[in-house]
């Protein structure tokens, strides 16, 4: 059979086109990602804080926890009852941005990489050892020309409960 040569540069460009195409499709799926932090050390009887790092696909934004309009869906993190008790969530300061679809009225949004802070109390009855706290992050994302349906994303934090 005839042998042909492999030209890395030429074929790499073609594969790049494929990758970009797949990337375009990926935009419609998940634009917000949770980057799990290292396990949180939680001492029984104290209040602890956990960072919830999030990254949003470039070009997209999510409404902040305090959107500019009643119709807009806020970012909201809620925790299910577990080994730790939620003591509130601190959201970062939102940015006020104008978009093609809202050129006059700035919207209160988060974009790029941002971090929420979740506070927990560790009950005196908590059992020492590894545990997890589970929550849901509800968000609604848009780019300059379209919006994606609201989504709820699972968020889990690993905890190491100590005396």
């Amino acid at each position, binding site marked *: *059979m*005839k*042998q*042909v*040569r*492999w030209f*890395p540069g030429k*074929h790499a460009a*073609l*594969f790049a*086109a*494929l*990758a*970009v*195409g*797949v990337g*375009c*499709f990926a*935009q*419609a799926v998940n634009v917000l990602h949770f980057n799990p932090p290292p396990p949180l050390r939680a001492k029984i009887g104290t209040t602890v804080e956990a960072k919830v790092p999030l990254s949003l696909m470039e070009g997209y934004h999510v409404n902040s926890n305090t959107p500019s309009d009643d*119709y*807009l*869906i806020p970012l909201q993190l809620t925790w299910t009852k577990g080994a730790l008790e939620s003591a509130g969530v601190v959201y970062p300061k939102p940015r006020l941005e104008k*978009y*093609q*679809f*809202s050129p006059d009225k700035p*919207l209160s949004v988060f974009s790029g990489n941002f971090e929420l802070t979740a506070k927990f109390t560790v009950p005196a009855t908590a059992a020492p050892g590894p545990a997890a706290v589970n929550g849901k992050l509800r968000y*609604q994302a*848009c780019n300059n*020309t*379209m*919006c*994606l*349906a*609201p989504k709820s994303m699972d968020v889990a934090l690993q905890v190491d409960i100590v005396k």
Partner: protein
Amino acid sequence: MNLDFTVTKKRTLQFLAIAGIAVYLASCSFYSTEWPSVKDEKDRKKAPEFVLKDASGQDVKLSDYHGKVVLLNFWATWCGPCEVEIPWFIDFQREYKDRDFAVLGVSLDEDGWKSVRPFVANEKVNYRVMVTTEQVDQLYGGVDSLPTTFIIDREGRVASSHVGLASKNTYRKEILTLLNDSHKTERGAVSSIKGPLAFATFGAAWVGPAVSPVASK
């Protein structure tokens, strides 16, 4: 480093490359809003039938609009770009309703009429608005990005689709093309889109085969 490949492998690579470019064009057209996109009649597929309730509780059945050009807009109250388009659609409804044209708005709001009713009243929407069901979303390709708008010809076929904010002028041109084209329905060739552009437009059309299950809420 150089590696040897057989002809078969080369052809596989060429196929992958072509597929990649095709995927790229199709997927990026998915988000493109400004290309003229009235399809040739032979490429149009039947718009899936649905029955949904309007604000007054009356059934709205797509097939009742056979013979009219329909702008079918999926939207939601939380969608900023949708809010930009709604006044345009109000204008189109007012300007062309006597020329066998109708706008139908389908809201994706999860809490239904609780959000939709005051919003529609506030915006003074003059066309029929319904609240979707999951079944209708699926019929139209699993609507997930808003606004999503289909322009349906007099024969009930999808002539164009837009995902994301398009321009008022783009919509107007497409509507007028279809309204002015009533006498041409048997002759085809409404659009002169050729080659990759035609493929990309086809790739952007979510509507599947001519299935017509009826959904109601």
